[in-house]
């Protein structure tokens, strides 16, 4: 796996190996796994009895109970399934920002490493994981699988990805939602830049299809602190030609107010739609971020 060392450091391996993801709700999967399945079927875990109706398989009748009660009951068993996780990674132009100093990592690289860690986490616990890379549309789509080779495919896809172009997050997520199909967990890793309402509508659609939607909103520290002091011309990473000259010292207050409004709108929209919203900075360790997120999630 030549791509693995590039996206996953050794400490990430160790950290992910110590973590487990437990589905919060039931999930649908093809393989027997560690998560509860909505299907009652072949299993050793008894769930309940119910009255026999015509059409039920005769072999499912609990004859011992019939001998005791003289009535026909059918035994039902709990079906344990593997989890199907889908990673939606934004590779639009806005994810290319890496700061003015040029020493930090870009938001896109942070997103790919975060996705790699999550992939490793799910594959290591035999869950199916898929990947969807998108900008204005879905560029790469790897359906969820729980094979070991799936991890290699994911790593290659993530390593080969590059960012650029505009973002139509709402449309792309709607398209992605149609591909998620069955109930599972969807991870959206994006800066979420764009109009808030289409984004929330798409996330709401995803939430209806998936059992859980987690939105890792990636911020670069510059975008949170706005540390500029000299008069600056800001050129759009997504739309060529779009620029704005600003005196940062006088504009900073307004910027921070805009930022707060945007963050509040996204956070409140996610909460209303029962979407887990995880703001994260691109300069924090992604493995630690996942660990902290899982710890908080289990506590909840």
């Amino acid at each position, binding site marked *: 796996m030549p791509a693995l060392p590039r996206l996953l450091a050794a400490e990430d391996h160790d950290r992910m190996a110590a973590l487990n993801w437990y589905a919060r709700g039931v999930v649908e999967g093809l393989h027997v796994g560690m998560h509860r399945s909505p299907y009652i079927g072949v299993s050793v875990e008894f769930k309940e009895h119910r009255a026999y109706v015509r059409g039920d398989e005769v072999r499912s009748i609990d004859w011992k109970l019939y001998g005791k009660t003289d009535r026909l009951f059918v035994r039902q068993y709990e079906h344990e399934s593997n989890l199907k996780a889908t990673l939606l990674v934004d590779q639009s*132009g*806005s*994810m*290319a*920002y890496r700061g*003015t100093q040029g020493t930090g990592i870009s*938001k896109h690289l942070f997103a790919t490493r975060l996705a790699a860690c999550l992939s490793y986490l799910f594959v290591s616990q035999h869950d199916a994981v898929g990947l969807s890379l998108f900008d204005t549309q879905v560029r790469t789509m790897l359906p969820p699988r729980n094979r070991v080779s799936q991890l290699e495919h994911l790593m290659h896809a993530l390593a080969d990805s590059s960012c650029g172009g505009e973002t139509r997050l709402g449309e792309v997520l709607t398209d992605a939602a149609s591909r998620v199909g069955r109930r599972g967990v969807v991870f959206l890793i994006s*800066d979420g*830049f*764009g109009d808030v309402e289409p984004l929330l509508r798409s996330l709401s659609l995803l939430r209806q299809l998936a059992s859980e939607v987690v939105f890792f909103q990636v911020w*670069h520290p510059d*975008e949170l602190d706005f540390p*500029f002091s*000299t*008069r*600056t*011309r*800001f*050129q*759009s*990473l*997504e*739309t060529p030609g*779009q620029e*704005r*000259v*600003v*005196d940062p*010292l*006088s*504009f*900073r*207050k*307004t*910027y*921070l*107010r*805009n*930022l*707060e409004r*945007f963050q509040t709108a996204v956070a409140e929209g996610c909460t209303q739609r029962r979407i887990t919203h995880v703001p994260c900075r691109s300069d924090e360790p992604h493995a630690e971020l996942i660990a902290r997120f899982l710890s908080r999630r289990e506590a909840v």
Partner: protein
Amino acid sequence: MGFLNAMLLFGTAAFAVPLGIHLLNRSRFYSVDWAAMHLLDVSDLQNARRIEWRSLLLLLLRCMIPIVLAVCMARPIVQTAAVGGASGRSTTVLLLDDSYSMQGRATEPGGQLSGWTMAQSAADEVVGQLAGQAELSVVALGGEAHPAGEPTRRDPRPVLGAIRRLEPLSAAADVIGGLRLAGDMLTASREPHRQAVVVSDFQRADWGASVEAALEAMRRQWETLPAIPELHLIPLDVQPQANVSVGFDAISTEVTLPGEPLDLQLTVENHGNEQLQTVPLRLAIDGRDLVSRNLDLAPNARSQLLFTVNLDTPGPHVASVELDDPAGQITADDQDTLQIETLPRRQVLLIEPEPKPRLLECETGFLQLALEATAGELGAGQAAEVRRVAAATVPPAAIAESDVIVLADVPRLADDVVAAVEQRVAEGGLLCVFAGESLDSGWYADTLGPASASYLVPWRYGDLAVASQQADPSGEAASAASIRGGPYADPLLAFFDDPQHGQLENASLTSWRQLEPWPDTADTTAAPADAKLLLSTQSGAPLLIAASHGEGRVLQWAITADETSGSLPLQPVFVPLMQRLLLLDLTSAVARHPERRRQESTLTPLTAAERASLAQRLGGTLHTSVDDFLAYDSNRQGGREIWRWLLAVVVLLLFAEMLVAGRLTRRGGR
């Protein structure tokens, strides 16, 4: 509105600095590829306008700071009606330099007017403007500084008349005396604003390094006054030019006797750079030409001439010297005068107890030698015609003819003699009484004391005191006492403050009559009020008392005129002491300062830089011309300086700039 330093208004152009920085910053910016473009949108239009307004306000504040600061430094004057009232009162002392250097040509267009003409014109203008607004006094600096005319406030005519009557003197400017006089006048003033205005050509000899320390000390003294006077210097430029000066340098004596040869030393100096030939010089006594001579003078050279004259007639005489200056501009130093006093021969009557065959055995022998000495202070002639008589055979007529009557240890006199002596002294004669063993103190108390009709001796004679019985100040017995040294209060004895003229303390005394004031009784009402002790021993015993009597004077000694009482007659100081006391009487020498009188003859005014430095050291204001001063004073009189308020505005602007900049750039929380 006017400005005292209008040139500094150019500093307002400094507002271009913040404006340029602002424009430069607008044209230069840093480029960043940015993702969150939607966060850069200013959806709140009101907020955007507020940001723009604050930016413009900040730029305005930053431009206003250098502008207001420059205006502040230009010292603006705001004219208000209130200032012309009570708060505008002032006292002005105009110090006008009427020294002879002011006769030089002024450096004005054409160069035809003298510096003195320009000074008078300037003084007229100053008086004309200040009259009615300030109490005005004029001090003339030439020679010895003195007030010219009476102070005036409303009517300037007396002061203008006094200025018109002034002429450049043949003496240098008395700068120190003038400023001291002005300081006294300003100190006595009660006006809130006080100023001294100096109109001078600022010759280096008057204002240079020689008087620098005194000027600065005076300025420090001014600064201790409750209202510190302002000092304004108005220079009048006088052209350096060729000049010749003449003056008396030295004289063998200023008090002489008839027929005595008198040496007069003259100094003639060419202050120019050209050789002068056949310059006529005339020396005159009492207006009659005595010597006429033509002189050849090398450039920048000094010649000394010695003339010997004889003055036969007693009384005051005037020696004058005059030359024809080829340059002709400065005439005050082309002549000099000298007053000489020729004394009449003094008739001295020495009365002794009994005559002796040999002179030095007589009671008055040493005294006669001293008065007739040819090496005395009064020169090579006989200042006195001395006559010695015995006390028993004194003709009253001789007393009436004598100027000086000496009683040398005379025990007593006949009544008619006493009456004659008293009458002569009352008419202006001098009585000198020496006391020894022979003196009958009881007769003196009864006949010449306060109880008598002829109250001649101011103090009472007591017993004879011997030095071995006295104790010196250290408490140890001594075989001889000495006369207490100077300084002496009496002008005649002040001559001996200089050790070169003799030291009285070198004389030792073995005995003397005790002297003490008469008892304070009703009979002493006629006692001389001015009786004063002139000499005493080191232990404080009185030796010489002086008092007036009518028009004359009485000297009362406690010792004898010979060597019986001590070694005083044997000392060199005895001759000048007796000559001064008995012959000069109250005549005193006139001090002369020939160097100072002629120090302005070489016209070397201070340079502009030196004047500026002088003004700075004196804490004064140097004006370029009288018009400059008048404009300054006009602004002061008609307006009020507001630079303090503007300085406060600058401080407020700085605070406002910090506040606005802080609000624009504050990195507050979200």
